[in-house]
């Protein structure tokens, strides 16, 4: 792994498993009376959010604070800041303050990549979601949730998701979650199927390491996990589908459809859910739905990523050491 985390596609299988294993240990901190580690004491992390996302920001903030980093929140939402220069100028301002890492959420695909590779700053860059490109920590927390549920909390240590059949349903075209998940799940050995109306599948998807289907009912019985992607109502106005009703009828997950899934299969959602659109309340509130777990797991995953990128003298997932010095 490089100094930065920009795309799930940058992670090797071993990198990803190490992050998941580390997150498993981080998760235990949440069970302690003092939910804090001194690991990033004296390091400064900026949460640079050009796009509203309270949940992602809070998740990163909790992770940073549990590792004792100094946290600066910088919300520079959309139109008030003039485009272009603002990213560079803001970045350089932060750099001048001696920031060690920038967690960035940006509406423009590639903005974190630019930030990491343009020479504007030296800090490590962690992508917290860019446009319709990538959201690697989301994919990691999803994989973490799947591994816990499908392989086991302890049995999963050191394991990937080989042979697990994962189905992603919904607006793939506009989804950074889908892109990150396809990349990471493939790296971890899972078999991924995308299900969506053809209008919401990108041209060029044929090169992705996954299958594409337009028929949800056919795929459900062969799924170990079904991840429902959020569908924004405004897509309807752009003629991606005729009506909300027709969308939910063809691609929404209700109790009846959930019954077609294997007994052990789980239902996932990156949130926020649009109940009644892609998922019914019955499914969202069922035992099989991992939405709340995913949120908790998000903190552990982000702690793991922060530790592995910032915890040492050099960010190094690929060569983390296991031997003690004596």
């Amino acid at each position: 792994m490089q100094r930065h985390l920009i795309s799930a596609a940058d992670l090797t299988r071993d990198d990803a498993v190490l992050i998941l294993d580390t997150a498993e240990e981080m998760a235990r901190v949440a069970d302690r009376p003092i939910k804090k580690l001194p690991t990033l004491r004296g390091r400064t992390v900026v949460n640079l959010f050009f796009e509203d996302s309270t949940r992602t920001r809070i998740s990163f903030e909790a992770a940073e604070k549990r590792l004792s980093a100094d946290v600066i929140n910088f919300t520079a939402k959309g139109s008030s800041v003039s485009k272009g220069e603002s990213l560079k100028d803001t970045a350089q301002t932060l750099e001048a303050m001696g920031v060690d890492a920038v967690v960035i959420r940006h509406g423009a695909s590639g903005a974190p990549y630019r930030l990491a590779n343009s020479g504007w700053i030296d800090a490590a860059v962690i992508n917290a979601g860019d446009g319709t490109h990538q959201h690697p920590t989301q994919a990691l927390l999803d994989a973490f949730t799947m591994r816990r549920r499908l392989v086991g909390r302890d049995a999963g240590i050191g394991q990937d998701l080989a042979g697990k059949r994962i189905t992603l349903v919904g607006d793939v075209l506009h989804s950074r979650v889908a892109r990150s998940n396809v990349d990471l799940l493939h790296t971890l050995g899972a078999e991924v199927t995308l299900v969506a109306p053809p209008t919401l599948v990108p041209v060029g998807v044929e090169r992705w390491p996954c299958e594409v289907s337009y028929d949800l009912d056919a795929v459900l019985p062969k799924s170990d996990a079904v991840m429902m992607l959020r569908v924004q109502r405004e897509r309807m106005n752009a003629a991606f589908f005729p009506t909300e009703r027709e969308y939910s009828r063809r691609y929404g997950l209700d109790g009846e459809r959930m019954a077609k899934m294997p007994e052990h299969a789980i239902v996932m959602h990156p949130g926020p859910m649009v109940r009644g659109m892609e998922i019914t309340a019955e499914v969202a509130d069922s035992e099989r739905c991992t939405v709340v777990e995913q949120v908790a797991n998000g903190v552990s995953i982000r702690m793991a990523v922060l530790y592995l990128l910032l915890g040492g003298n050099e960010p190094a997932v690929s060569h983390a050491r296991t031997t003690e010095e004596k």
Partner: protein
Amino acid sequence: MSKILIRGAKVLGGEPQDVLIDGETISQVGAGLPAEGAEVVEAAGKVLLPGLVDLHTHLREPGREDSETVLTGTRAAATGGYTAVFAMANTFPVADTAGVVEQVYRLGREHGYCDVQPIGAVTVGLEGRKLAELGAMHESAAGVTVFSDDGKCVDDAVIMRRALEYVKAFGGVVAQHAQEPRLTEGAQMNEGIVSAELGLGGWPAVAEESIIARDVLLAEHVGSRVHICHLSTAGSVEIVRWAKSRGIDVTAEVTPHHLLLTDELVRSYNPVYKVNPPLRTERDVLALREALADGTIDIVATDHAPHPHEDKDCEWAAAAMGMVGLETALSVVQETMVDTGLLTWAGVADRMSVKPARIGQATGHGRPVSAGEPANLTLVDTEYRGLVDPAGFASRSRNTPYEGRELPGRVTHTWLRGKATLVDGKLT
């Protein structure tokens, strides 16, 4: 004016000859011409071409003098071997009146580095709704014959039809920027495998092809001629080929960058590769080269589009579209067309001087290198290879996609009506 003897140049890439310039014209072409009374330019091994003509240049003046002016743009043109450039109309104010086109025309004449022929807007303010005063621009001192809303597509079929019909009265031509606007809302790059991965809004080939198909049919219907700007897809090539085979009066241009670069470069998210139309795929690049070689595509035009540094030093979505091209065009054409065996130097002269001059009716340009013709000439060291260094550009802007890339060929001399504008690679 004095005499200049260009000695031993390979005229259009042929056998070495001497070319004698007397005043504004070529007085003699032949072997062993006497040097007496003439300044001698040793040109052994170099290729002599008619001065290049660019049918598609953005000089930015008036309005965006921070990125280019007529002066800096024409200096860049002379450096690249050009003796005439057609200045696009998307300035501020838009070149949609006789007043603006005359201003640009006059500035070019005053600076004297390169003839500047303004292109007039097709519609008022490039808004696509109301025809600009095409006749007035034609009758002005600038004598506009080429009209284009470049940067925007004349997407309304009725307006396009009227424009094609109207310019017939004075032999004008409409140059179309083919981009169906609805299909390219939010578009950031070529739609395909790379855009799917990068999550950048896709710019489908069909958005270009559908407009070209419509416009060649319109041109046929009203019996006018149409010119297609910066054609970029294999499908567009097929449509133009079909139109020509039907006898439709259509001409087409390709930019140097579409002959060399592909959308794979966008993986860097470096906005220096952001351009309109977008970089396409390898398959498109090969089809464009073949079409330029077989004459389906008539000319190379640079679409020289200067932008200030800050408009490119940002995230992809916020960046301006366009690349500078005047100073690297001939090198890219040598790399992609000559060194690959697709085109001879005579072919290059045809595609980069003769044909663009003919389409744009630039009198005195694109003429044969022979006695009695205006001395608009370009001398090229085709053996040269070097790295592109934007710091040395004459253009005010540096947004080249070729920084640090090795390219062949270098223009050493340019003469505009017998006056040297570039000597040994240096502007006069």
